[in-house]
Structure formats: C-alpha cells, structure tokens
C-alpha cells in the first residue's frame, strides 16, 4: 500500500543526512543574506530615468516589453515549445486503455449559465488587464492567463473551444506572440538600425500592438496545453 514510507526513494539515514545538509546550506545562505541586508542595491533609479523613453509608464511593463524584451520573447518561446510538445503527446494518445470513459455526468444547467455569464466578464477583465498594463499593474501574460481560464471554463461546461494544434488558424495563433516580438525586433533592426529599439514616439502604441498579439497567443498556448492534460483528450 501507499504508506508514507513507501513514497520515499531514500532510506531514513540518507534522509536525515540530507536534511542536516540542507539545514547547513540554509544557515550559510541566511548568514550571507544577514550580512548583505544593509546593501540596498537596486536598479530603481536607472529604470525611472529611462522610463520616459520606454513608451509606457508602468515600470514593470517597461522592463518586460522594452528594456528586457529579449527575455520576454524567449519566455514566449518556452510557452510555445511546451504547447507544441504537449499537443504532439496528446495527439499520440490512443484510445483509453487504462483511462476511464468520458464523464457521463451531465453538465448542470447552472454551470452552463455560469459560463455564459462569466465568459464576457473574463474577456473584459482580460482586455482591461492588457490595456491597463501600460500604466498600472497588468499586462499581456496576466491578460492571456485570464482569457485561457475562460477557455478552461468553457471546456468544463462542455463547450470546448477549438484547440487542435493541427488547425492552421490555431497554429497561426500559437506563433503569433513570439512572431510579433521577433518581427518587430527585426523590423527595428532594419528601420532604426538597432534590434528591439522602438522609436520613442511610437513605442507606446507599438508595445500595445505586440502585447495584444502576445495576449491572444498566450491564451491559446495555455489552453492547448491544458487540453493535452485533460482526461479524455482534446476532442469534445
């Protein structure tokens, strides 16, 4: 049976040794931090100086979409990579041998109405987060996650969105986010001569456009990944 002891791959002696070692590491790290506590180094001043040149007024968005846009592009590439892989593994899933048949429990009409009421609100909140990200907390990722949640809710109420990654439109949406970053970076290389260098006057609207693309893409990527994990496959 699955007693707690059976769950551990390590014998008790090894576990206690490990625990002691980790406590030691913790003490060392704690000590190092304690001595560093008064340093108070930060990049706040630098960010604030350059903020007017970034096109947005929310410093976090400025860092994400302008100063360190390359990181964000790679982060979207990670999501894309996972969505594609999960889609492939989901595709390979054969008829459920060890899996239970699809739920026979009927969907409650109340859940349907919840989906109907909540989806518009979720879309609005997502759009709001996207828009407000330029000056206050919010941004593409948060917006995309909320939008994907709307998809998840629809999935549970039996109204799945289209999610087959073999669909051309889905694949276009998958690459849209990373593509928007990359194309704009390369376009800027052609126009201004510097990779990812947005002209200050246009930076705001340009960043909004990229973020919109990223939001849609993030939502689709998260949703496709979710469908690959769902029992019963991604087909409704």
């Amino acid at each position: 049976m699955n007693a707690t002891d059976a769950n551990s791959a390590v014998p008790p002696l090894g576990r206690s040794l490990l625990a002691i070692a980790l406590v030691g590491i913790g003490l060392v790290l704690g000590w190092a931090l304690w001595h560093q506590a008064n340093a108070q180094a930060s990049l706040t001043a630098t960010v604030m100086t350059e903020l007017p040149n970034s096109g947005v007024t929310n410093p976090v968005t400025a860092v994400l979409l302008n100063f360190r846009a390359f990181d964000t592009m790679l982060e979207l590439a990670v999501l894309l990579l996972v969505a594609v892989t999960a889609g492939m593994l989901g595709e390979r899933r054969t008829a459920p041998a060890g899996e239970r048949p699809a739920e026979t429990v009927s969907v409650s009409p109340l859940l349907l109405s919840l989906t109907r009421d909540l989806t518009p609100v979720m879309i609005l909140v997502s759009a709001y987060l996207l828009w407000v990200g330029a000056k206050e907390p919010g941004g593409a990722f948060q917006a995309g996650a909320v939008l994907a949640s709307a998809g998840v809710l629809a999935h549970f109420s039996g109204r799945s969105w289209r999610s087959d990654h073999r669909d051309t439109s889905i694949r276009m949406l998958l690459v849209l986010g990373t593509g928007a970053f990359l194309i704009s970076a390369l376009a800027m290389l052609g126009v201004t001569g510097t990779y990812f260098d947005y002209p200050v006057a246009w930076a705001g609207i340009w960043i909004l456009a990229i973020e919109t693309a990223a939001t849609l893409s993030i939502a689709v990527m998260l949703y496709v990944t979710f469908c690959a994990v769902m029992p019963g496959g991604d087909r409704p």
Partner: protein
Amino acid sequence: MSELTSGPALLAWLISLPLLGALTSIALKHGGRWPALAVVIANLGLACWLLASTQSAPLRYALGGWEAPLGIVLYADTLSAMMIGITAFVGAVVSWYSLDYFTRDSSSERTFWPLWCLLLTALNTLFLSGDAFNLYVGLEILSLSAVALVTLSSGLEAIQAALRYLLVSLMGSLCYLLGVALLYQAYATLDLALLAEVSGSGMLERAALALMVAGLLLKTALFPLHFWLPQAHAGAPAPVSALLSALVLKATFYLILRLWFDTLADAATQMGSLLLGLLGCIAILWGSLQALRAQRLKQLVAYSTVAQIGYLFALFPLLNDPRVAGAAFDSVIYFVIAHACAKGAMFLAAGNILTAAGHDRLADLRAANLPSAITLFALAIAGVSLIGLPPTGGFIAKWLLLQSALQVGAWWLAGVVLLGGLLAAAYIFRILAVCFDISPPPAAMQPSSQGAIVSAGRQWSALILALAALALGFLAAPVLDLFDANLVTD
C-alpha cells in the same frame, strides 16, 4: 551606437534566425523541414562570419540600445565563436541525417524541426548572452526542448527518461536562479561583465557561485550527478542523442567555465577546482567501467559521454595554475570540439545500426547487421578519437592535457588519463569486435533482424562527423590559432 550596428548586429541575427526558423516551421502544416534546414545552413554561414570577425576584437551588442545594468548585452569572443561554430557544424550534419531519419510528415517529424530550431536558439543564446537572467531563460529553453526531443521516441523508457531529465534540469535551473537572485540582491546587476568587475570573494559570492555551478553541474552530468544521463541519451532518437551528447552538455559546461574563471573568479577557490578535478577523474573511470559493462550499443556510447565529461573537469586544477593555464584552455576547447564530432558520429552510426538490425544489443549484433562499410568506418574513426590515439582530435586534446599535467607535476592526473584511455580502448574494441564478427546472428533474431535499409545520406553524415574528428588531429595548429587569437582569460 549606430556605427557599431553592421558588425555586432550579427549577434542579434544569430539568435533570431533559429527562432524565426522554429516559428515558420510550426506555422507551416507540411514541410516544416525546409525553413528549418535553410536556417541551419544560414546559421553555419553566420557562425563562420562570427569566427572571422572575432579574430580582431570581441563583439559586443546591447539589445534595444539599452546598456548593461538595464538591458541585455550580447557578447562574443573567440571562445563563444568557437562554440557557436562547432554547434553550427554538428547541427548542420545532424540535420542532414535527420532528413532521412524521421518518417515524412509523421507527428514526430513535424515536431522535430521546430524543437531542433528552438534548441539551436537556446544554444546560441547561451553562448552569446552576457546576462545572468537571460541565461536562465536560455537554460530553460535548452532543457525543455531537449526533453521534448527525447519524447519523440514514444516508448515507455524514453518517456521515463525524459521525465527524469526534465525534473533534474528544473532543479538545476532553480539552483542556478537562486544564485542569480543572491547576486542581484547584493549588486543589483545581472550583467556578467559588470558582476566580474564588482564582485568580491565574500560569503555571498561563494554561496552564489556554488549554487549556480551546482545547478549547472546537474545539467552537465558530472559524476555523482550523471544518473539521469545514460537513460535519456540512450532512449532518445539517434539524431537527438547526437545533439544532446555533442552540444547540449557542452553549453552548460561552457557556462560553468565562464562563471568559474571569469565572472566570479574571485570567489572560486583552489579547493573547489581540485574538487571538480577529482570528480572529473572519478567520472572518467566510472563512466568507462560502466561503458564496459553496458548491454546495448547506445548505452555504451552514453556512458562514454559520462567519462568524456570527466576529462573536461579533470582539467580544472590545471586551469587555475598560471604556468599551464594557456595549454589547459587549449586542451579544454579541443576536448569539447573533438568530442562533439566524435560522439556525434558515434551516435549517428549507432542509429544506423539500430535501424539496420532492428535492435542494438551488443551480444546479438553481427557484421551482417551493419548497413555498410561507411558506417563501420565512421564508428572506427570516432572510436579512435575517443580513445585518444593519433592522428585524431582526441589525441591532441589528451596530449595537451598530459603535457600540462606533467609540467606541474600532477602525476595522479596523468595516471587517471592514461588509465581512462586504456579503458576507452577496451570498450571501443567491444564495438569494433562486433563489426568483424562474421558469424551468423542467433537464430532467434533472424525474423526481426531484417530492419529497414539505411539511406546513403544517413551513412555519409555519420562519416563526415568522424572525418571532422580526424581532421582536427591534422589541423591542430590553425584551429588553436583561431581560438587563441583573442581570448580574454580572466
């Protein structure tokens, strides 16, 4: 800024081109291989260009025009150019091999090309980026795409190996990130060059270095942390094994090198180098012994990787010694590139045998299972390079290593290297023995033994990599000149 763009913009292209390839490859429903191939070839051209342009001075490029503490800076010297070059070369040959390896338009094939492009993006990013956090994101793309590539072979063992690999590398990445967090807390900068200037040798730097290196060691599979490697490298499809063994491990090793001897050099202690060297020695012996005992061909090759990684770390004590640091660096780079070619050739050839015979159990393999003499030739040359016999690249690397070890009187190291060479000879001869065994295969094997026919492209690509390992032996002087031209050591 603007007058610099023509040259250094090359760095930006080196990372965006593979990414562009990945995106196009995903967007196309069929034939995603063509953009990927185009990108791989273009990448090879760019890599040559980079090698040429770093000869005069290192390149530096601030992305978006934002300078260091705020933005991300790309940076290339001859070491990174060399790594990018070997990546591009091995990558191109493996791509050629993969053209015939995967079934056209199968889901594996459609997934392979984008993933491989993303892997290439990650590799180039890791070699070029000068930003600690950007390196973290690069590491994550590297490991996630590597894991995803392993899952392309759909068997139970492959998935198991992929999962273990994934969890291990996630832990490694997080250890690395914790180190980055400590450094940021102290210095509020992520730029490696700036960190190298300001960081001292306090407790915090030591802790950060230890964490970052430990995380990377886990991904590089140095001896006690190698447990995930054999399964993953042996279970993956052949071209993927070649990429993982030849390139992916080298990328994380390169980062350790950078951190240990450049960015946080003040915090790195002699003791630490010695410890790494010792682990490297154990890895040489342990990996070779395991390779001797392996039942399957791909397992044997994978264990040999564990041993070869050991050589890289065995050099650490020498790298710290000012008398021989130069020669030791040459030796490291030679080990890296020679091993990349030889191991790539080995895995590709093993893939050919696996396809031809339908299995890779050493006990049941016979000469009749070999696709042709080309594959045999590739195996033999690559094997000789791994043993370290003249006139191959592996020999040059070992020669440089022995020379510097003897110069500083590290007899124990020389002994381990010689012993490792003997053990390598022993396990390589296990493979070669198969090739000359003309007795008929066991009867039980007969019906399934007639595997598929291996295309000429797959055989020649294996041979090309092996010949490259051979050529490295003859071209030692020019290659090392390329490398030494403009190296910034400490």
